[in-house]
């Protein structure tokens, strides 16, 4: 149960908003629930609804509205590749095709071992560093086919690879 396991975080989230405006906490709580359950499962949504005194169907419609809440189970690593126009002008489409081949799935699918979900996304505000991806919301800039393979292999081995070529100051 979210309420017991993440009690402190829930309290901290609720404290950000006026006491009579708890509903504002629905998105941060959904992130929390998603972290706990891997996706916005029916239980997760029900728990969030309970905490905020909302109807579960309302929570469900909010989950459905945004691309970053998952209504269905996803891979352990969600890889978002931007193929919007500015990135596509710098080779993003070809790069996505490579990602699909490397992972053996189409964009929008999860690998059979449940490890990776590949998605294409609209602009993620890093167009000067294309091709650019996010793995569980962590940016990886200036990707190449080789650095993608390296990253995926490292994640598959679970050696904690977090960043590929972040730009340092």
């Amino acid at each position, binding site marked *: 149960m979210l309420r017991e396991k993440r009690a402190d975080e829930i309290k901290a989230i609720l404290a950000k908003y006026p006491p009579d405006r708890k509903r504002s906490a629905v*998105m941060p709580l959904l*992130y929390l629930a998603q972290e706990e359950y891997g996706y916005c499962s029916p239980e997760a949504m029900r728990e969030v609804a309970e905490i905020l005194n909302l109807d579960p169907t309302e929570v469900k419609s909010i989950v459905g509205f945004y691309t*970053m809440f998952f209504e269905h189970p996803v891979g352990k690593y969600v890889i978002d590749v931007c193929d919007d126009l500015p990135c596509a*002008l710098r080779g993003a489409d070809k790069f996505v095709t490579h990602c699909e081949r490397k992972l053996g799935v189409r964009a929008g699918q999860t690998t059979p071992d449940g490890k990776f979900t590949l998605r294409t996304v*609209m602009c993620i505000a890093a167009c000067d560093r294309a091709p650019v991806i996010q793995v569980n919301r962590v*940016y990886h800039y200036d990707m190449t086919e080789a650095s993608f393979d390296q990253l995926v292999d490292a994640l598959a081995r679970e050696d904690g690879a977090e960043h590929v070529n972040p730009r340092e*100051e």
Partner: protein
Amino acid sequence: MGGYYGSKNKTMEQHVLLRDVDVPNIREIDVYLAHDGYAAWKKALSSMKPEEVIAVVKDSGLRGRGGAGFPTGVKWSFIPKDVFPRYVVVNGDESEAGTFKDHQIIDGNPHQLIEGILLTCYAVQANVAYVYLRGEFYEPARTLQKAIDEAYARGFIGKNVLGSGFNVDIYIHLGAGAYICGEETALLSSLEGQLGQPRLRPPFPAVQGLYAKPTVINNVETLANVPPIVLHGAQWYRQFGTEKSPGTKIFCVSGRVKRPGNYELPLGKYTIRELIEMAGGTIDDRPVKGVLPAGSSAPILPASALDTKLDYESLQAAGSILGSASFVILDDTVNIVWAARKMVRFFKHESCGKCTPCREGTYWGLRLYDKILSGYGTREDIDMIAEVASQMSGKCFCLLGEFATSPMLSTIKHFRDEYEAFVAAHQGGRRNGYDDELIREGVIDEAGNLIIGYVGQKTAHHL
């Protein structure tokens, strides 16, 4: 902790906003403090009335950097007297394709943003500010939160700030992937825990915004301008820019150039051509085909407009807008039909679905582009696209629907011959270089057949 994001293009002796280019590690509070950090905040709290802060921002002529270019000080003065509490909401949704300036400010110079938020809170006497960041800014949000925590620890935020009696709190709120939440009323709905859909205006947020209370909403870059204005004064600020477009602006340059990145420049000083030169020129020095001055949302400008000056008035006179100044550069290798389809796909994806003209128009617009790009288009389909866009124009509930018409109408206007040549060269579903994308998106099957059964349908009647 979030990594540092940002380009290091030195375009000014001393940058006003991208100070991370000049000062290494200015994201850290001690470095920021050693470079005039929080000096404007101390000055305001110790020697200025809230109205005086509003006055200096008004005099500076600062205009909103989120797209509309509305004068910031004027907006602040719309807050009704005697209605409390008030809120300051910071727009960090930054989702316009080609825009990545707020990203660099947050990662590279977060304290200047925080100081700008604090000054804004003081100016309009708000005790709480929410910073709405797009959900993908998970890492920048951590950088900003760390900076906020540092500022609390030094007494710049919190109760009775610096002994002034003023209380202020700043909270970050993460979105979750929806371009429409950058539109200010949709942003407020999202922040309130409702669906992120636009609301009717009036009432404007200044009168009834967050929780139906008076609310100032400004873009990240807008607020980063405020500390130097308060510290050095309106005249100092006006040394940059033009009479009507004062100050400096961050230009995001992306697409077919050698050195894409952020370039901070005085408004009105340089031309689009010079901006492209600063970005290293085009890849392989190809001729420029067109420029999108505000990502997907503004009409494309053809190469003949390259000598347009970079300010609000000049770009408008040239037939486009400055908007968020996200310059996407297309060279002559770019297929305009493909590029337009990418933009229409963006709007189809991001339409919030609240009103019919936008929801249906972007859907059918994309379908027509799918048909053309996959090699099944006709000349009539080109007209049909223009027809779909014209039917949307002026009928949509918010500006997103209006924005969506501009890639369709402006590319057909300037490049109709290319559309026709493409249609003629790809008759009968001839395989072309776009197969992978079109298969991925479910437009054609592996054999190149159109999957969606609308070939030849006169779709615009569904609007």
